């Protein structure tokens, strides 16, 4: 523990760690020092001058260095002028006066001065009602200004910094919180200050504007209404919003969110989600949220929602009752016996997946997870468990990122890993091309696509990098699927697991394997015992298929063809998809906003989400639908209470042992304080009152015998002459079902591009922006070529979920299309 320092603030004895700033020390002891520019997560700058206080220090004799004593204690010498509490670190014996007449006069003057050019258009401001400037003006302001109204500067009201964030130049008080957030925390220096004095303004330095995936956070920490989001623009007043805790479903990080809902006339009088705000969980997402999580929530309210069960009659889907639909499905599932196949997606909750797995086990069928990534059984064995927190990683911890571009795949992990590296953790990045994390890495290893396993196995040889890893007291490996299919990523996971086991980096907090999955609850599916199948076309043939939450037909023409050969297809989903179009039975499920449940994050943390909006139509929760079908098959599964399903799950899945809904809803005190009346301090991030989640245990932690299979070397495809090696990569904003309905993100999603090295493209005679035709294994598609010098020559990067169905690395023919 660091050195503790005792000081006096407003007559109250306070003990805080050395190095704390006075403003933070005051906050820790429950005393409010008003601040605008200071933020506990950012370095201090002292720009706004709001935190002026009187600071006295014990006087020392100049010749002896001893304290000068007075009335039995050290004599306190106050500075003649006020000092900023946010830039002064605490010292032993300091005396702080935050509410003396002098200090209050200073604060009053600062507010008056800050308001000289503020438009005071609070009635139309999106921040009005949760605005630090409003609150602090009420608390510390003079009430009346001596400045002349006509001397106010009238600046531009709506300046888009990008298409997501708008700047109101008049409202800005130049605190630089946003600029500092981008520089220090996000590491994307894409906004900055321009001009000086009263005309100083924030400008975007990138093209497209404000090109960062963390841009939404700047509007949370903006102490005024200068930065607002395009999504929530004039959406509602903050006090009219209801708040309900939820979990982001966009990636495996499992960011804690709060859904703000309101009844809306535009939506026909329904209660709808108006905005998604981060909810504090210092062990998961701190107080941040990426733009995908913040803006891509519209899919659940789309017009293509399924509202009623449907049954195919005379080649057409016709409305049916729940009874009829589930009875038909049950009848077919019973007939299928061993030929019953469940295909579930990681969008489902733990409870849904558990019921599905139980049903498939009962019919002795197969349960597949719809994912492009394998190796999940290993994360249950040697994954991370209790006590793991990126915030605790620093000196002595090695973090290995292999085959993953975290910035695109799991932005908040990127942020947390970056910060761990800055605290002194050894960051080793293994990737075939440059990623944003390279800048912060101690060691960067480039390997050729296809050599992922070898690059991990090289750790067993002696080298500077392997030494750094082996000798580290803690080590985590995050593995992804950059350029890999199911088989490749499974082999990579095995190699990583073996390395962790050999170096004894398992079964302890902050040690283990983390999968950078494609969906929010892939880890949960693995825990339930789901498997992935590299070749689903074979798995479908002649089978009775129960597809839940996935759209294989829309994703891949080959799978569409394979499903034509299936005996019977039952589809259960939230929205109409291409797959529901070919189904024999369609069952409408509730979106995650309409129900309760739990997700397991990539860090193997089980977290609860709650119901925020009413149910659409006749939709039912997934676990309930499965239970209804099961009942008709003569199998009793819990289908009414989600917490009861969880209790049964806990009985049968070892890693969940000892958990229950009450435990998942427990909260602990967190620092910094956010929300409430303290929103001037930490920003408008919501306080966590509905649960921080609990880690699952790993087999390694439980002391079980671990059997890690031998690494299966996948034969990587060898491109012939005139062929290129095409590899799938993940793009943050893709055309996936959960992103596409968010129109605001259209520009970020963009068109399908194939990235090539300029040299390789030149050889083919293709210019940037020109269209090429790609064909492989019966799949073909057209896309524009993008030059990217970080791509190895001879390789073409094809983003997933953008139109070309690429599931694994393949040799492709590429033709220039005029």
């Amino acid at each position, binding site marked *: 523990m660091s050195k503790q320092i005792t000081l006096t603030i407003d007559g109250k004895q306070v003990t805080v760690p050395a190095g704390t700033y006075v403003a933070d020390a005051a906050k820790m002891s429950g005393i409010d020092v008003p601040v605008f520019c200071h933020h506990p997560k950012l370095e201090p700058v002292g720009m706004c001058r709001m935190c002026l206080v009187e600071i006295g220090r014990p006087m020392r004799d100049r010749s002896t260095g001893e304290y000068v004593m007075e009335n039995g204690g050290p004599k306190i010498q106050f500075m003649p002028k006020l000092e900023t509490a946010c830039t002064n670190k605490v010292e032993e014996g300091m005396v702080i006066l935050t509410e003396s007449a002098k200090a209050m006069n200073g604060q009053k003057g600062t507010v008056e001065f800050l308001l000289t050019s503020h438009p005071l*258009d609070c009635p139309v401001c999106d921040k*009005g009602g949760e605005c630090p400037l409003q609150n602090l003006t009420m608390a510390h302001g003079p009430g009346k200004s001596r400045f002349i109204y006509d001397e106010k500067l009238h600046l531009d009201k709506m300046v888009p910094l990008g298409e997501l964030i708008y700047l109101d130049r008049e409202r800005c008080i130049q605190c630089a919180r946003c600029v500092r957030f981008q520089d220090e925390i996000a590491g994307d220096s894409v906004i900055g200050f321009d001009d000086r004095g009263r005309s100083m303004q924030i400008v975007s330095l990138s093209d497209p504007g404000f090109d960062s995936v963390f841009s939404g956070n700047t509007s949370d920490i903006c102490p005024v209404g200068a930065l607002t989001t395009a999504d929530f623009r*004039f959406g509602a007043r903050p*006090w009219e919003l209801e708040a309900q805790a939820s979990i982001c479903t966009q990636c495996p990080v499992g960011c804690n969110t709060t859904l703000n809902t309101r*009844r*809306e006339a535009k939506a026909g009088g329904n209660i709808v989600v108006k905005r998604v705000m981060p909810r504090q969980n210092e062990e998961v997402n701190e107080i941040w949220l990426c733009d995908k999580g913040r803006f891509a929530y519209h899919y659940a309210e789309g017009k293509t929602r399924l509202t009623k069960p449907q049954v195919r009659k005379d080649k057409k889907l016709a409305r049916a009752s729940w009874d009829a639909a589930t009875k038909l499905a049950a009848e077919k599932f019973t007939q299928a016996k061993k030929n019953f196949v469940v295909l579930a997606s990681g969008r489902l909750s733990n409870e849904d997946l558990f019921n599905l797995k139980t049903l498939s086990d009962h019919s002795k069928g197969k349960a597949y997870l719809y994912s492009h990534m394998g190796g999940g059984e290993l994360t249950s064995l040697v994954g991370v468990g209790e006590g793991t927190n990126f915030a605790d990683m620093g000196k002595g911890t090695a973090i290995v990122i292999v085959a993953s571009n975290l910035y695109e795949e799991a932005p908040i992990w990127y942020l947390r890993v970056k910060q761990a590296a800055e605290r002194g953790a050894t960051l080793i990045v293994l990737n075939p091309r440059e990623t944003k994390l390279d800048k912060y890495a101690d060691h960067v290893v480039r390997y050729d696509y296809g050599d992922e396993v070898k690059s991990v196995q090289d750790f067993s040889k002696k080298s500077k990098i392997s030494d750094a890893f082996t000798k580290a007291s803690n080590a985590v490996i995050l593995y992804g699927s950059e350029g890999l299919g199911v088989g490749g990523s499974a082999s990579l996971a095995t190699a990583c697991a073996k390395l962790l086991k050999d170096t004894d980096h398992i079964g302890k907090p902050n040690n283990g394997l983390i999968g950078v999955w494609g969906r929010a609850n892939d880890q949960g599916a693995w825990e339930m015992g789901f498997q992935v199948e590299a070749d689903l076309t074979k798995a479908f043939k002649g089978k009775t298929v129960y597809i839940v939450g996935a759209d294989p037909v829309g994703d891949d023409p080959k799978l569409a063809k394979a499903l034509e050969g299936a005996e019977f297809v039952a589809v259960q989903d939230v929205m109409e998809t291409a797959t529901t179009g070919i189904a024999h039975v369609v069952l409408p499920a509730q979106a995650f906003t309409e129900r309760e449940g739990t997700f397991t994050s990539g860090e193997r943390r089980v977290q609860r989400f709650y119901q925020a909006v009413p149910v659409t139509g006749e939709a039912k929760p997934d676990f309930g639908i499965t239970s209804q079908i099961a009942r008709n098959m003569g199998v009793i599964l819990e289908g009414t209470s989600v917490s009861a399903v969880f209790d049964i799950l806990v009985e049968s899945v070892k890693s969940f042992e000892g958990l229950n809904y009450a435990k998942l809803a427990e909260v602990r005190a967190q620092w910094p304080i956010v929300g409430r009346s303290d929103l001037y301090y930490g920003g408008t991030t919501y306080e966590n009152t509905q649960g921080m989640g609990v880690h699952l245990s790993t087999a390694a932690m439980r002391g079980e015998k671990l059997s890690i299979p031998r690494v299966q070397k996948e034969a990587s495809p060898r491109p012939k002459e005139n062929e290129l090696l095409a590899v799938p990569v993940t793009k943050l904003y893709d055309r996936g079902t959960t992103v596409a309905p968010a129109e605001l993100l259209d520009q970020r999603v963009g068109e399908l591009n194939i990235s090539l090295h300029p040299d390789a493209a030149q050889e083919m005679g293709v210019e940037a922006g020109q269209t090429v035709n790609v064909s492989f294994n019966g799949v073909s598609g057209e896309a524009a070529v993008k030059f990217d010098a970080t791509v190895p020559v001879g390789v073409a990067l094809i983003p997933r979920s953008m139109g070309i169905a690429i599931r694994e690395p393949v040799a492709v023919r590429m033709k220039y299309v005029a």
Partner: protein
Amino acid sequence: MSVFEPVIELVRGLGTTIKMMFEKPVTFQYPEQKREVRPRFRGRHVLKRYDNGLEKCIGCSLCAAACPADAIFVESSENTDEKRFSPGERYASTYEINMLRCIYCGYCEDACPTEAIVLGDNYELSFYDRRSAIYTKESLLEPVPTVDMTTPRKVEPNVYKRSVPEMKDPQK
């Protein structure tokens, strides 16, 4: 008690009746005749316009926040110079008052930063069903003086930039 006493009382009573016959009647022949209300009467709300026809309401929802009966519902949207409803960036795209809930306290008037909502002199509020008790923006808005002043309308760009009018110091 004298025998004449009841007779005297009767005549006195009749006298009052006869006196009243010659006085001006207080009864109004409603609805043919309507009573002039007092200056501070609080009747049905009116959404006011500026002289140029633009709506004063900017959709800030402060009236809804001040309303003790939760009778007001406001939803706002963004103005453009092509399609302008009110000065500034924001206007009320939905404005509803449930007259069955309203208690005519006038807090909405107090809360309004642009003096857009005013309790008027209309007291004729009767409905056949509950739904028609909800007054929409169209029914609450003051009529425009001339046809070219209707909202939304196209205005010259970059003129109507302020939502809240410049308020003069009342003490000066």
